[in-house]
């Protein structure tokens, strides 16, 4: 084992011969290896050296030269400890994650008292801290009176991660309720507080994943505080996404884990809904919904696949200690049973459904039903068995459906009849009906006027041109300011219609205020849960999402879906539309796994066949996107082809929808490697979009960009160059010179130009991209560093070392603030600085940069080209300095990426 570390096959040859030689008597070994190695002198040297090492090491490595009692004595003696800037006061407890301490931090004239959680050995510190850095901003923004704050995180001296949290004095919620003999009503109020806090966290895109009584404390003031929000994700090695997500089971106690966690499936907000249901169950009955007894693998599997949901009313009043449990609720078993049966059984049962799509759609929806129950109003959930049976009945006997529909109609008339109990009221209502009819007429007029210019309309009527339509809308909006003040309903309809067309034209900043005004009018006219309000919420959510306001957008989507689900009778098309839009939003925020169940619920639901074709197609396309991102390419191709076929058969192949479906399919085919087919589909889509949406529409530009990336990756540089030149030019004309998407096009264009060996043109574009990012992006957005890194690369190639160093240092500065340490992109920056320093004859200064970069890149699998470039430079560097050992260690890593 001298000189370069041999590769695997070589090492095995050495090892085999070494092993065989050891079997011989020491005196015979030299001759044996001479003959076995057949003149391979290196092999002979390596094995001889190992044989010497074997002789020299006899009696070595038997045990460590320090007594183990010293090891533990040292840790026992460590009296007053400090962890980071915190002084440990005392231990608060130990749990599955590690040990929690009460700790102080001295500030300017005050002492901050915190709970400090030191995680167990065995959790990968770097992973945890990396996730902490990514999640920090989200978790820090979680400011809610019922949620304990996460302040800080770091690593102890011995390298264990720790988290610093608000210190909460309180009692676990179940113990609190029991020791005070709280009645069912008071328990429900506390559960409501918990659900509201969970719902607020969901709006900030944080899922708890481990809600259980010991994580929910009640303070002396009688308010709940939720601990450890978002912590489970930090500790979950599968939480970074990817195909092999193993979420859930990590450190969770099985009696609180949801079925999808037990099955190792993705965790979503609906997991929290399930755990809220389990909490409610326990608060009401005094036992967990499922026996924690069977912890064997089979038991857990059975638990994961269970379909029955136990009824709280039955569980509460059964068992030998039923008397005690009832007394703790200030009642008797019989009374408790009566209290729980009916609505509470239904609410808990809906939250505890094994299949996430069958649960309440959100924590908010669950809270809504608890509140309704407390107010004595009808709840939204229905006993599951009844609706399920009814659905099955209708599915099996389709000819019965119209009759059932008629029954619903009769019910509607019956209600109306009851309301019209006085002549005066009836007169009023007639007037209202008249008004509505008039409004409808106005609306129809307006919608017809604009529909011909609405690019999303079916292909044969779509010939609008963006600019003129926008002008027309602007005029219409101006007129509305002064007219129709006395007809709020008509105004709201027109506002909605204009907003919708703006929205479809991509002019979201003008669409939003109109839609908000319409929403306010609808709320006061029709009530906060009306169809008009629900529709406005959906549109507003999409608009704000398009404008990049992701948190409020998600909140609006969830609210709309909850309202749609709670409406009776349920409008399947509305629910499906709400799901598709929420799912799309989740994709846009890289939460594909949360999105997938929504699309599946739409496509596999009992009403799938009767849905509007646009909703159906959109769900398919979105599902294909999810499958592609999750690397299930075959499924993605199948789904995308289904979408194309459905569009072609219904809306038409040359509609915008047809183009979108083809774009989706082409993306997947490109990844599979069917470049020609993908290229053709993209071209077809771009042509269609030009005819339907116009040459300058953002969707068309993005499709062109996608085609260019496909060509770039396939080495078709000329074709990619032409496309990107056009997207950058058109993008600049449409969005103005200072728009981040223009910078993206420029960056891509420049990359192609570098590959085409046109460095001067590339430089000019990189510089413009860097300038746009500097103007438009937050200082710690890592995208800002990308053109700078490229510029450094160009400078290095052109032997302009000083300028390369400056650009790479600026990039490193940004990346250090934006990404966790050791990230592959950061390493690329370090490497380029090192190379610049070497070129400037500053070898010693380059060494630490090379060392940091190689340390991060040796095991990296991402960015293979950059990794190679960097490691090769490092090898050359160490070789030139006579450090053959280091050089060959890095060279070995180069041969085996990611090993």
């Amino acid at each position: 084992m001298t000189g370069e570390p041999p590769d695997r096959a070589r090492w095995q040859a050495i090892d085999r011969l070494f092993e065989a030689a050891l079997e011989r008597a020491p005196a015979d070994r030299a001759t044996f290896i001479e003959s076995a190695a057949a003149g391979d002198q290196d092999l002979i040297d390596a094995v001889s050296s190992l044989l010497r090492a074997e002789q020299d090491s006899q009696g070595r490595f038997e045990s460590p030269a320090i007594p183990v009692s010293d090891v533990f004595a040292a840790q026992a003696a460590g009296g007053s400890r400090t962890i980071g800037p915190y002084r440990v006061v005392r231990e608060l407890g130990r749990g599955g994650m590690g040990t929690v301490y009460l700790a102080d931090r001295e500030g300017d004239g005050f002492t901050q008292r915190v709970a400090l959680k030191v995680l167990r050995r065995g959790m990968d510190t770097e992973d945890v801290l990396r996730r902490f850095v990514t999640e920090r901003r989200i978790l820090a923004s979680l400011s809610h009176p019922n949620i304990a704050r996460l302040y800080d995180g770091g690593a102890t001296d011995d390298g264990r991660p720790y988290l610093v949290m608000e210190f909460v004095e309180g009692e676990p919620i179940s113990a609190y309720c029991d020791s005070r003999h709280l009645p069912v009503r008071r328990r429900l109020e506390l559960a409501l507080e918990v659900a509201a806090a969970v719902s607020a966290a969901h709006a900030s895109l944080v899922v708890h994943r481990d809600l259980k009584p010991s994580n929910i404390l009640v303070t002396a003031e009688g308010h709940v505080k939720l601990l450890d929000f978002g912590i489970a994700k930090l500790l979950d090695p599968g939480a970074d996404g990817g195909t092999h997500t193993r979420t859930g089971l990590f450190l969770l106690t099985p009696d609180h884990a949801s079925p999808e966690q037990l099955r190792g499936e993705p965790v979503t907000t609906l997991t929290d809904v399930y755990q809220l249901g389990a909490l409610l169950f326990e608060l009401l009955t005094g036992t967990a919904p499922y026996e924690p007894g069977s912890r064997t693998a089979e038991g857990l599997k059975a638990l994961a696949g269970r379909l029955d949901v136990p009824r709280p009313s039955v569980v509460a009043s059964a068992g030998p200690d039923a008397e005690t449990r009832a007394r703790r609720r200030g009642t008797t078993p019989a009374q408790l049973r009566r209290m729980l049966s009916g609505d509470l059984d239904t609410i808990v049962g809906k939250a505890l459904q094994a299949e996430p799509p069958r649960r309440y759609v959100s924590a908010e929806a669950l809270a809504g039903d608890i509140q309704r129950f407390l107010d004595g109003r009808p709840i939204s959930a229905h006993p599951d068995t009844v609706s399920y049976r009814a659905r099955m009945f209708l599915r099996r006997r389709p000819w019965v459906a119209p009759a059932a529909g008629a029954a619903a109609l009769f019910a509607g008339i019956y209600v109306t009849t009851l309301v019209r109990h006085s002549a005066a009221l009836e007169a009023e209502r007639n007037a209202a009906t008249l008004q509505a009819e008039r409004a409808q007429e106005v609306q129809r007029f307006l919608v017809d006027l604009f529909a011909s210019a609405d690019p999303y309309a079916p292909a044969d009527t779509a010939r609008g041109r963006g600019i003129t339509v926008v002008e027309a809308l602007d005029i219409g909006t101006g007129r509305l300011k002064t007219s129709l003040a006395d007809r709020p309903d008509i105004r709201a309809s027109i506002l909605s219609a204009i907003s919708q067309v703006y929205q479809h034209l991509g002019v979201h900043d003008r669409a939003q205020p109109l839609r908000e005004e319409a929403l306010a009018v609808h709320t006061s006219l029709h009530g906060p849960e009306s169809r008009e309000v629900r529709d406005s919420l959906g549109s507003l959510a999409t608009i704000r999402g398009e404008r990049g306001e992701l948190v409020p957008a998600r909140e609006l989507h969830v609210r709309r879906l909850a309202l749609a689900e709670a409406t009776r009778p349920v409008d399947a098309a509305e629910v499906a539309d709400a799901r598709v839009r929420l799912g799309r939003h989740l994709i846009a925020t890289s939460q594909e796994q949360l999105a997938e169940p929504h699309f599946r619920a739409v496509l596999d639901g009992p009403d799938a066949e009767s849905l509007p074709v646009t909703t159906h197609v959109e769900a398919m396309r979105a599902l294909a996107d999810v499958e592609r991102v999750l690397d299930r390419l075959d499924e993605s191709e199948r789904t995308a082809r289904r979408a194309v076929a459905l569009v072609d058969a219904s809306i038409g192949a040359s509609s915008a929808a047809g183009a979108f479906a083809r774009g989706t399919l082409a993306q997947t085919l490109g990844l599979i490697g069917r470049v020609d087919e993908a290229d053709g589909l993209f071209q077809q889509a771009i042509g269609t979009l030009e005819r339907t949406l116009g040459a300058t529409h953002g969707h068309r530009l993005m499709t062109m960009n996608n085609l260019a990336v496909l060509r770039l990756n396939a080495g078709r540089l000329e074709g990619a160059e032409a496309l990107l030149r056009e997207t950058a030019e058109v993008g600049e004309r449409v969005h103005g010179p200072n728009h981040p998407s223009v910078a993206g096009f420029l960056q891509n264009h420049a990359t192609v130009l570098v590959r085409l060996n046109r460095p001067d043109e590339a430089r000019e574009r990189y510089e413009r991209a860097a300038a746009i990012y500097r103007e438009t992006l937050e200082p710690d957005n890592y995208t800002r560093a990308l053109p700078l890194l490229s510029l450094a690369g160009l400078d290095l190639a052109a032997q302009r070392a000083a300028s390369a160093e400056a650009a790479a240092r600026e990039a490193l500065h940004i990346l250090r603030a934006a990404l966790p340490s050791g990230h592959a992109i950061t390493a690329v920056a370090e490497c380029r600085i090192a190379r610049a320093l070497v070129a400037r004859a500053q070898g010693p200064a380059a060494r630490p940069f090379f060392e940091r970069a190689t340390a991060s890149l040796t095991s990296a699998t991402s960015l293979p080209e950059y990794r190679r470039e960097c490691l090769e430079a490092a090898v050359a560097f160490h070789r030139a300095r006579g450090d053959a050992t280091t050089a060959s260690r890095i060279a070995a890593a180069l041969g085996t990426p990611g090993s």
Partner: protein
Amino acid sequence: MGDQDTLAPLVQRWTDGDRGAFDELVGVLYDDLRAMAHRHLLGERANHTLTTTALVHEAYVELSRRTGPAWRGRAQFFALLSKVMRHVLVDYARQKKAAKRGGGELHVEIDEQAAGAGNGLLEILSVNRALEHLEARDARLARIVECRFFGGLQESEIAEALGVSTRTVERDWRRARAYLHTLLATDQAPAPDEEHGAQ
């Protein structure tokens, strides 16, 4: 504390072949071993030196009582505890080294090498590093070193734990020793002097 609630399902999942459960078990047992050793040191038997072998055997008795018959067997459990001991010892050595550095002492390395205990610390760290290299090449050799050096196991116990013959363990040990010796020799080779100038 790895109470029954945490430990039993983890052991079950480990027995079922869940790789993640194994890592978690190491984490849980780490704290358990520490607690056990503390009790030992504070208790009546504080006068005799606690060896790794004694601690590992004692831990087996206590933990198997708490978890019931879930363990795959004594030997596998020993192998697991050896891994935990490796964590414990490496942490300790790192902490010691860091504490000395932090104390502002100069020439820490030389001081450590002069003192016997310091030598032990350095050896733990360099064996651990060498073992990481060896793991990448031959996992079984690395397991044997882990069981013997860190876990204090006898050859017969190692053989049982790894499901091989004692003879194999003997043979493998000689190879493992030679590789460690070689790796340590390269590891401690003086670094070439920094030179100035361009490539």
